[in-house]
């Protein structure tokens, strides 16, 4: 690789291209050649910087000088001043960028500004394989406090008063769960950590386990003390090899330090943890199925009641909580329930971690106080939709959740508000969709997932999801009718009411929510036989616009199935019966004469 002393980036995104960035690119290269420095300076065309309104944008590294609204006539001066003489051309530098043009520490970055890290407090800060670093950040201090200064009842009381609710999806009050289990009389009780995380696109729990495994171990020991259990299990999916390895290291170190095992810290309390690897079936994340799986049986849900608090693992009273739920516990014990209540909202206290994905600029992991609005997450923290596209919907709760439309973007995120919108908090997957996503196809995608993952134990879910998927496929192929839409809705409501476990009960949510907010898209598919977003292949047509077409014949050569016929200089046409909608012709046509609709 050649070494350039400087790099000039010119944005080649749609926004900037429409404001003549390509002319600038060419002129820039010419100017640089004029000065004979083309071997020192590299000119790079880049994708959109997301600041289209300031375009055309030119950035010069290593200084990181950010020039906005550059005009072709500015270039001679820019090259002369900056690239030849090494002086930043102040007059063109975007004013906001003058002082603070470079972020030294990630923490000052807008992405983090609205975030508040409780569960992820140590992630990205400490070395997860070094227990001393966890201890340095007050690790195991909460366990110390609980064992030396608090009764089990007091621990339950603090958790209850904090208002912490389960982060695994359902939002059940954690303190109440602990209290019910603590009340049971039994010779043996268990604490389980649910680290199955089967929701596609979610990786919150994985990140906690990989970045801060001791926080979960510490919380489980605290839980054990509170309910009177001496044994804990972490059920983690085998597809998370790094998380598994970090947990193994952490458990070993905790045992060496006497923070797990017999007579912890010399207080007489004994507690130990074992790992159990899950095979990755989605239904194994459901608590009763998970316990079946730990017991060595096939992971299938069993009817509740009895609830785990009375009869859980090996019929003993059991507390089962999610990874993120646990990660909050040590902080609550150390800082108090009032502190935790001061974050978030009245009914949903604390924070929630989300895995932002889909059509969003900043994909990644965010932790926000409850009550933050969807708009703040998507547009401020997430940086909005790339390529200047329009926001269409956001999917929360994974396969059990629903799609929320633009008119509800200002809803504060809480357990109950999301349910009211037909979605749910879920474990924290958040997928953003733009105008290019077909909502019928999205519903089909999730139903395909749940149909696949249904354990088959009860009929409504086993047969019902299959029927629903069949109807959805029919619609996406353009063979659906209006009656099909009604049938789909009916089936969805029936399954919701009659399925045995949470998987079946929530499986129809993606369909119901898209029907609620995007019914017109369903109707477009069945009545007009059109997919407005241009996703459903069967409903798409590629056609040649005759008056734009230059009759060059390139498309006919590109077509893999010989669907384009015609004669050079005369006429070309696409045979719709033969066309497999691969798009090759459209890509190859030099004159943009082929359109898709």
């Amino acid at each position, binding site marked *: 690789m050649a070494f350039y002393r400087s790099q000039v980036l010119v944005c080649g995104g749609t926004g900037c291209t429409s404001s003549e960035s390509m002319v600038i690119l060419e002129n820039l290269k010419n100017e640089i050649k004029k000065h004979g420095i083309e071997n020192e300076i590299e000119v790079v065309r880049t994708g959109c*910087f997301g*600041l289209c309104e300031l375009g055309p944008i030119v950035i010069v*590294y290593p200084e990181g000088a950010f020039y906005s609204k550059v005009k072709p006539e500015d270039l001679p001066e820019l090259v002369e001043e900056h690239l030849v003489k090494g002086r930043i051309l102040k007059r063109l530098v975007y004013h*906001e960028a003058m002082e603070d043009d470079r*972020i030294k*520490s*990630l923490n000052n970055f807008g992405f983090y500004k609205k975030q508040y890290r409780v569960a992820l407090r140590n992630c990205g800060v400490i070395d997860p394989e070094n227990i001393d670093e966890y201890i*340095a950040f007050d690790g195991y201090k909460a366990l110390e406090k609980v064992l030396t200064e608090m009764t089990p009842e007091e621990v339950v009381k603090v958790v209850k008063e904090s208002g912490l609710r389960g982060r695994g999806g359902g939002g059940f009050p954690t303190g109440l769960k602990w209290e019910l289990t603590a009340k049971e009389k039994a010779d043996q009780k268990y604490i389980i950590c649910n680290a199955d995380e089967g929701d596609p696109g979610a990786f919150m729990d994985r990140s906690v386990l990989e970045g801060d495994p001791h926080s979960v171990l510490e919380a489980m020991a605290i839980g054990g003390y509170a309910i009177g259990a001496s044994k804990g299990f972490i059920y983690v999916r085998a597809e998370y090899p790094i998380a598994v390895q970090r947990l193994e290291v952490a458990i070993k170190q905790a045992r060496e330090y006497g923070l797990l095992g017999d007579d912890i810290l010399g207080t007489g309390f004994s507690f130990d943890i074992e790992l159990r690897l899950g095979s990755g079936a989605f239904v194994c994340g459901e608590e009763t199925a998970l316990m079946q799986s730990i017991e060595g049986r096939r992971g299938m849900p069993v009817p509740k009641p009895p609830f785990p608090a009375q009869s859980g693992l090996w019929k003993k009273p059991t507390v089962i909580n999610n990874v993120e739920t646990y990660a909050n516990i040590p902080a609550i014990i150390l800082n108090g329930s009032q502190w935790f209540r001061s974050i978030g909202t009245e009914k949903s206290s604390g924070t929630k971690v989300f895995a932002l994905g889909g059509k969003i600029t900043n994909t990644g992991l965010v932790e926000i106080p409850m009550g933050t609005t969807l708009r703040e997450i998507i547009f401020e923290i997430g940086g909005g939709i790339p390529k200047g596209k329009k926001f269409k919907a956001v999917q929360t709760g994974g396969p059990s959740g629903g799609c929320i439309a633009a008119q509800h973007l200002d809803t504060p995120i809480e357990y109950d508000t999301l349910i009211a919108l037909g979605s749910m908090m879920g474990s924290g997957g958040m997928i953003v969709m733009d105008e290019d996503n077909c909502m019928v196809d999205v519903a089909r995608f999730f139903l395909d997932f749940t149909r696949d993952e249904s354990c088959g134990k009860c009929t409504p879910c086993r047969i019902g999801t299959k029927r629903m998927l069949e109807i959805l496929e029919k619609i996406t192929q353009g063979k659906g009718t209006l009656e099909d839409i009604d049938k789909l809705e009916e089936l969805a409501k029936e399954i919701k009411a009659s399925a045995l476990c949470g998987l079946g009960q929530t499986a129809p949510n993606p369909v119901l929510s898209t029907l609620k907010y995007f019914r017109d898209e369903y109707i477009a598919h069945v009545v007009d036989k059109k997919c407005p977003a241009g996703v459903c292949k069967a409903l798409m047509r590629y056609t040649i616009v005759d008056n734009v077409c230059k009759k060059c014949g390139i498309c006919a050569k590109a077509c893999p199935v010989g669907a384009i016929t015609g004669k050079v200089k005369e006429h070309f046409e696409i045979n719709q019966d033969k066309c497999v909608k691969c798009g090759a012709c459209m890509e190859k046509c030099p004159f943009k004469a082929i359109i898709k609709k």
Partner: protein
Amino acid sequence: MKTIKELEEIRKKTLDVVNQRKDRTTTRIVVGMATCGIAAGARPVLLAIMDEVSKLGLSDVIVAQTGCIGLCRLEPIVEVIKPGEEKVTYIKMTPEKARRIVKEHVVEGKVVDEYVMHVVDGKVLNDYSVQND
């Protein structure tokens, strides 16, 4: 087995090593090593840094791994925290770039500006995708 008193000692002793504040005495180089970081190539980066540190015979430097920093798309991410200075975040690292950082930033004290994250209006600018053909 550790006693509560011993834990408190570990806490005190380790805090200087881990804390991100300016009153520390060693330089800490931290590499994000969660699943996404590793997938983006964080391990070769970590190895290169360790190799460079030992090649240059640096003694008051700690190389550590850490979990998810939250910005998966900018991985591999390396943070350098020098005593008395603000933390510097480098993004999209490669083993070569990381070696330069050890030489220029850690040893000579010159921040390698080209690899530091640049932000305007909350948008990361050096997160560009090259489109030259």
